[in-house]
């Protein structure tokens, strides 16, 4: 009080004069401007920058969670699972949210995950990252123990792992899925859409510690994949694979394939290839093992082609099974068509039984190229079999306009035309009861699909009768006999094309046959690629495997024998090998 109340003597110094209202207004004005600046800034943030800020916010809090759909089960025709998804856990870490892990805990973690502590430390070293996989696809029990260590920032996440109970037996057929869960090969790839289902989606806001705060959009629940029922019979599949593998090993072959078709419906009952792989553990998987040869590889079918020109000739009534033909070697231009075991004449049945090139080519040459092309084209050579299988080969059948006569002749015994084993097996469906070409199917059908009538039922019956002689005494494939059943079939031995010319020592041994021949139920086609164990003739290398597969399959399906009295097999070992023309 002393300062202002008594000092009257120097009026200019009075606070009353110095403390002017102007200065108060000035300070108030400054503060007012500052407060208005705050409001202005708020408007700027909420009008001009709003979209940007909202986006930045969403980038930080908003997370789209995938609700994984369970992939559909693949079963055989009887419901036996061939591919299923089992829940597994993946361990991940968010280094950004972690404190340094005590060494003891790190060692314990490393022991559980079977990793080295140094590896784990390296994965956790980038402290800016918010997501690092530590170990994928481990068992739920192990994951529980890892999370139980209570290390902050380490969490588990459910995933599904595809498991294939039949392993290498169905490897090429089923294929497999990649780490992303998508089909990579086989049916898994072909039917991806149906199996995958549709992942669900949940859009949420998360707090910084990863807790879900709320859903900001309607939850789309996942739609699980559908169960896919294949036409395969897993018992026949196992049998076919086992016998094929034995045949490939016995003949020291490079590879082999087998297809078992239901001759009445066109369904594929088995399809196997050797070498195969274990789809559950694909660590060392080379392309050679991965190839589904039965569908993808194409080869020249050799003598297994001969029934087609013969059927064409019979269908056109140009010959009967008993028509005698001159089978001496003959010239087409500069080239000679000959048989190794030449006979002056044979009837049509014997031409099939002995696999005569001369006889088959003479029947082919009874037709103009266009007619023959139309028939080959009709049975599906040169076009994809529409099996729906990824990468299926369509084979090669050149346009008839460019055929020279010698080419038409060689095409009758399976050179100059290439097919896949699936195409070949399917073509043989015309020799079943009614002479229809059936579509093939890898999925179970509730009845035969409509076929395409190519030959009369009578022609088909005559063809089967002729082809039965192939497995009988004097035929090229006596080893393809089946106890209690008549087997109609045709062996084939084709030289392989290597760099455009036929190799002398590389062959494909084939046997395609139907049984019971009187009322066909099954078609089995066996291919043995590059046998090196002595014989390379189709009847010898593929015949026994065919016989075992056919016999077993007929038994599995409970097919009644059509030759119950035929209870002894011809002693093949004593007999000279009847070699077909190559």
């Amino acid at each position, binding site marked *: *009080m002393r*300062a*202002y109340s008594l*000092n009257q003597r*120097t009026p*200019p*110094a*009075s*606070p*009353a*004069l*110095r*403390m*002017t*209202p102007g*200065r*108060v207004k*000035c*300070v*108030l004005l400054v*503060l*007012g401007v*500052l*407060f208005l*600046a*705050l*409001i202005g*800034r*708020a*408007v700027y*943030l*909420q009008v001009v*920058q*709003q979209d*940007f*800020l*909202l986006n*930045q*916010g969403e980038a*930080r*809090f908003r997370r789209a969670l995938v609700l994984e759909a369970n992939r559909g089960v693949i079963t055989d025709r009887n419901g036996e699972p061939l591919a299923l998804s089992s829940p597994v856990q993946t361990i991940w870490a968010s280094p950004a949210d972690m404190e340094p892990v005590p060494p003891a805990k790190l060692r314990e973690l490393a022991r559980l995950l079977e990793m080295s502590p140094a590896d784990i430390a390296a994965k956790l070293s980038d402290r*800016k990252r918010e997501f690092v996989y530590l170990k994928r696809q481990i068992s739920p029990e192990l994951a529980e123990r890892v999370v139980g260590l209570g290390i902050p920032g380490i969490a588990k996440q459910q995933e599904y792992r595809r498991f294939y109970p039949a392993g290498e037996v169905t490897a090429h057929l089923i294929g497999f899925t990649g780490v992303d869960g998508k089909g990579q090969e086989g049916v898994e790839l072909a039917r991806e859409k149906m199996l995958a289902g549709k992942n669900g989606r949940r859009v949420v*806001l998360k*707090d*910084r*510690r990863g*807790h879900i*705060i709320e859903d900001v959009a309607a939850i789309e629940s996942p739609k699980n994949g559908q169960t896919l029922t294949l036409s395969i019979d897993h018992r026949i599949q196992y049998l076919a694979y086992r016998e094929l593998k034995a045949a490939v090993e016995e003949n020291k072959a490079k590879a082999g394939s087998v297809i078992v078709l239901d001759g009445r419906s066109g369904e594929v009952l088995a399809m196997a290839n050797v070498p195969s792989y274990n789809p559950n553990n694909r660590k060392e998987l080379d392309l050679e093992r991965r190839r589904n040869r039965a569908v993808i590889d194409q080869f020249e079918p050799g003598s297994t082609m001969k029934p087609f020109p013969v059927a064409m000739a019979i269908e056109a009534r140009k010959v009967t099974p008993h028509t005698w033909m001159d089978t001496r070697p003959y010239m087409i231009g500069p080239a000679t068509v000959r048989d190794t075991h030449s006979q002056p004449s044979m009837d049509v049945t014997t031409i099939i039984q002995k696999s005569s090139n001369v006889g088959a080519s003479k029947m082919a040459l009874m037709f103009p190229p266009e007619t023959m092309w139309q028939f080959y084209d009709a049975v599906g050579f040169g076009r994809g079999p529409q099996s729906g299988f990824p990468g299926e080969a369509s084979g090669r059948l050149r346009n008839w306009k460019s055929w020279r006569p010698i080419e038409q002749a060689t095409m009758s015994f399976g050179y100059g035309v290439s097919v896949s084993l699936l195409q070949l097996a399917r073509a043989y469906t015309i020799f079943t009861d009614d002479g229809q070409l059936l579509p093939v199917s890898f999925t179970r059908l509730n009845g035969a699909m409509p076929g395409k009538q190519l030959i009369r039922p009578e022609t088909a019956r005559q063809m089967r009768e002729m082809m039965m002689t192939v497995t009988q005494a004097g035929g090229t494939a006596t080893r393809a006999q089946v106890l209690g059943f008549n087997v109609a079939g045709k062996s084939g031995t084709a030289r392989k094309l290597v760099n455009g010319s036929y190799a002398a020592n590389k062959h494909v041994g084939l046997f395609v046959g139907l049984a019971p021949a009187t009322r066909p139920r099954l078609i089995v086609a066996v291919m043995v690629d590059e046998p090196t164990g002595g014989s390379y003739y189709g009847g010898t290398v593929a015949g026994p495997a065919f016989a075992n597969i056919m016999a077993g399959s007929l038994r599995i399906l409970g097919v009644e024998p059509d030759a119950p009295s035929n209870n002894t097999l011809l002693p093949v070992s004593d007999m000279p090998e009847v070699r077909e023309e190559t």
Partner: protein
Amino acid sequence: MMVNSARRYSPITALDEALAWAIALLLSISLVMVYSASIAYAEADAGTHNRYFYLMRHVLFMAVGLGVAYGVFQFPTAFWQKNAGRVFLIGLVLLILVLIPGIGKVVNGSRRWISLVVFNLQPSEIMKFATVIYAADYTVRKSHKLHSLKEGFAPMFMAMVAVAFLLLREPDFGALMVVMTIAMGILFLGGINLRIFSGLAVMAVTAVVLLIVLSPYRLKRVLGFMDPWDDPYGKGYQLSHSLIAFGRGEWFGVGLGASVEKLFYLPEAHTDFIMAVIAEEFGFAGICLIVGLYAWLVRRAFHIGMEARKLERYYPSLLAQGVGIWLGIQVFFNIGVNMGLLPTKGLTLPLMSFGGSAMVMNLAAVALLLRVDWENRRIMRGYKV
């Protein structure tokens, strides 16, 4: 006439009711918002595991603060004027004490707190209060010398340099800015020579720039403020999240309790960055309400000061206006920091943020304001103070 007679019978010792209600409103909002902003941290913290942890302490501080305010209100302004030097000295001693290791407690690299077992005392908050008391007294006492550089200005300048030196040792740059603004504002209102004032302002700005450039820690904060989106996960982390909170608020906010930023994204959500949470939950409307309340409060403080001035009560006048400058500038600094107008400082929002010393001293300051007004009313009605 009924109206006039009604006024006559109103209690002559009445408080400024509107001011008291405005403060009560701010405190109520503070309770709700501190709880809202701290609930996630409180619940998740392994040490507390109690969602009411911060709220309970906040209520306690507020209660202590109201008690202190009641006490402050009991003293006539003349008491503060008489003891201004002592109050300032206590402030200085506390600022020295806090720098002594063992007494001063270090949090986040700054030695700003004196641990009193149940409660951490923040001397810089007391210094703000002391500066108002002292600067007002000084200005009135030296009013006849305020045109002189040597006699009028130099003593105050030396005192402020001492305060600045101590605050920078903590360091507490934000408190320094507030203290300087209060001191210069009161000197200006008290009629300091404009040439001296301008020179002082230039010097102050130069000093601030130098302090920023010469300190890597402050430079980092300033750089983070210049473009928070340049390094939003490093230097600009806090500010970018605060800005996102403002953006998310839109016109009317996401609703009470619905802030996402407070869920561990925005550090210091319940203390320095409580305005960001208010902005997110109540939007532009909430910002306008809060800023408006403070603006009204500041304007009221200056009005009380001018009324005192009319009554030739110069010291209470400067006291009230000093409180107005304090609240006004600190509100501007805090909200400006939240909005990215100013670099991060570490200042609370007066009467709103969680923080014991700040709450108590802010309540003490508004008690001064109410006391000045109360005295004005009594004098106008012819009573003795």
